[in-house]
């Protein structure tokens, strides 16, 4: 057992967990945040993607102990003051989800992608390539790609307007 502390969706949390506890289990079972999903056991599907210190991470591939002291954001932490994050809104507006199981991981990967490339700098090929680590069985990706492009372009517009 070891004590793990982190800032999870802006809140300081800590718990004593078995050493082998995965970060995804810490989030889902210890913290009862069930938006982060588990779709495989080989780090392939991306249903578990979250942000650790601002970077996209497959939370099934990391021990909770490795996130000790980190700042962690899950899909539950994206919306601020009840307003959806532009990526969340774009998934709804572009029908980028069906069963919703891959969706939290897709959204977190998209947020990371837009962070890395800069809003407005994503084209379809880049998005498809960047989604290599996320599997969706429902949507055929068409509308996921559209959602991410729309969010990226809209966020570019927002930051321009703010300047």
């Amino acid at each position: 057992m070891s004590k793990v502390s982190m800032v999870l969706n802006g809140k300081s949390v800590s718990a004593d967990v078995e050493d082998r506890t995965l970060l995804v289990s810490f989030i889902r079972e210890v913290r009862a945040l069930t938006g982060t999903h588990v779709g495989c056991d080989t780090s392939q599907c991306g249903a578990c993607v979250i942000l650790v210190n601002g970077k996209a991470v497959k939370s099934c591939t990391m021990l909770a102990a490795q996130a000790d002291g980190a700042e962690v954001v899950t899909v539950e932490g994206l919306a601020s003051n009840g307003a959806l994050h532009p990526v969340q809104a774009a998934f709804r507006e572009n029908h980028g989800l069906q069963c919703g199981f891959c969706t939290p991981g897709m959204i977190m990967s998209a947020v990371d992608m837009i962070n890395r490339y800069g809003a407005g700098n994503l084209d379809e090929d880049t998005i498809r390539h960047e989604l290599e680590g996320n599997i969706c069985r429902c949507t055929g990706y068409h509308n996921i790609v559209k959602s991410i492009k729309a969010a990226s372009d809209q966020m570019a517009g927002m930051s321009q307007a703010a300047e």
Partner: protein
Amino acid sequence: MAVEGIGARALRKEDKRFITGKGQYTDDMVMPGMGFAAFVRSPHAHAKVTSIDSTAALTMPGVDAVLTGDQLVGDGIGNLICGWMIHSKDGSPMNMGGWRALEPEIVRHVGQAVAVVIADTQAQARDAADAVEVEYEELPAVVDSVAALQPGAPQLHPEAAGNLIFDWEIGDEAAVNDAFEKAAHVTRMEISNNRLVPNPMEPRAALASYNDAEEHHTLYTTSQNPHVARLVLSAFYAVAPEHKLRVIAPDVGGGFGSKIYIYPEEMVCLWASKRVGRPVKWVSDRTEAFLTDAHGRDHKSEAELALDADNKIIGFRVKTVANIGAYMSLFSSAVPTYLYATLLSGQYDIPAIHANVKTVYTNTTPVDAYRGAGRPEATYLVERMMETTAREIGLSPAEFRRKNFVRSFPHQTPVIMCYDAGDYDATLDAAMKAADYDGIAARKAEAASRGKLRGIGMSCYIEACGIAPSAAVGSLGAGVGLWESAEVRVNPVGTVEVLTGSHSHGQGHETTFAQLICERFGLDSDSVAIVHGDTDKVQFGMGTYGSRSGAVGMSAIVKALDKVEAKAKKIAAHLMEASEGDIQIEGGELKVAGTDKKLNFSEVALAAYTAHNLPEGMEPGLKEGAFYDPTNFTFPSGTYICEVEVDPETGTTEIVSFVAADDFGKVINPMIVEGQVHGGLVQGIGQALLENAAYDENGQLLTASYMDYTMPRADDVPSFNLSTHETLCPGNPLGMKGCGEAGAIGSPPAVINAITDAIGNNALTMPAAAEKVWSLYQSGSKEAAE
């Protein structure tokens, strides 16, 4: 908010919870005191279980119990069953072997469960499952369906001599023989349809609890049809009586057929929760899913098509061997028979068809319906034959198809189906135009100048949805009726709840079903709620599969709405002292035609519940239910055109364009329909290019994880060019046909027709892996049959 009725691209009501992480899937559920189940599974494809020793496991931390098949059988739990009786052509009933949820004697596929451990945590349960010592005596295994029929093959079930479950036929064999005698041209092919794993992203899961004071069970489970699950669990498996069992299928993360069936694991959790006296949860890991979720397809066929001198099809002969796996899953017998051979006429006027289907036990995971279920196998066979025949006789594939299209309706095929409506020229024209089919020569030349091989292929599919008229399927062997039920409850304040027996696991019913109510009463969608997936709330339902929720589920809602509307009009007429025939509903109001008298819908609802002033003899309340039994199947159809570029150096295929022109009848929400097509197309393209469930000769599944089974990723597929062309289905009130499976049904032959066109070699099998494509191109034998 504007009223979003039929035809509106209404955004989904259910999305908010999914995009904010508030969806509630089975694995998200927690019950006080719950334990976790882990299964002990066979590492062998075929073996005698000689002993199971739980001693060490029982001493491990947190372990509550280790349960085995002997205890299960001792408690009177029944065998798993196949619910559709098929008779062989000699009239004998199918040969079904026994299937126990925990096998005490002989295991027949890798991954079959022999025991279950219940412990305080999932990790403890899994550790202890590893410590259960099971001794096996290995038996020879067979995985290939054709090999399993050979004399001397290992035998799986005493009930099925020679591993043959049934030897079934459909159509007029003599008429087909006549046609072949007269034929001016015959095309022959061997065609196989690769085995697939459905792979919804949410793995199966169950959480069962038992209240001993009430003698009542609750089961949360990943099901496409919770009422069917309850029926089977009570009537056949005798785990709990129906009125003492509540089955809830909450948010479900995709199904594609694989969550129709009632599997051993869910049943064992239900049984174990009573035995150990605590709630029991099980969540499949992905490898377990590969080993135990019902697989799809796995057909081997020989097909022959006979033409007259004018290139009209005069006969079609098909022989198919279908691999059923180690046990007969719930609908496994219907898939390669009535869901397959009845679609062998395609979009074509074929006077004589005969099909023979043998289904076979092998030491592999059970095979059952996967998105399309039989219809993709039929379409692949028909459309590969059509393209190949066109090439052989030197007609353009479009012209050859056109020459044989059905053009007058209703059209009775020689294989049961009676097509009610369609316009196959319209979808073919639309697809050819969108794909610039006639400009392919220039694009091929341009690609050649870059050293690439360009090819184009089409597929004109038809499928049967809206399953199904109960009496008709009953006469064909179905153990259940395939109607749907609905209840429309108008609350006193005028909000509406619709309870439906359909189940949504990605299809967006909360939105599309609400659109019907908004359209009918002029309400905004926030005042409508759709309730589904809970046997305590919804009285009964047959669930969602076979693209039936629109054509059947929504038809039931329409019937109930008719009754609600009639009663509301009666009340309104009474209150406004008008005649019932003069009441019109518009914009949320009930108006007396030609006057300015009107009542708000909510005022009429309130009047129904206060009951202070109702017409003489009328019961209070505004709530109506309906059962809808379809009058016929529905027949979605369309044309898909795929254009590919193959790299001759590596054999890799890139899909450069994909056009789909579909006729789904009435479309309620185009946005959702497009989403269904996108998803179906990628599953079909996955089958054609990437996916394959491969076994070695000992029955080990070589593709039991995402490291080995290639799921289509965003980078493997293109964006799509879609259109719909509506001919209304005359058989149901809305004219709907269904759109859930078309993409997966129509796309594989379009892809393979395109690649074989590009490489000039027809001997390609699915999946079209680069190495296979490369060596076929190198060998260059253009005439080789598939």
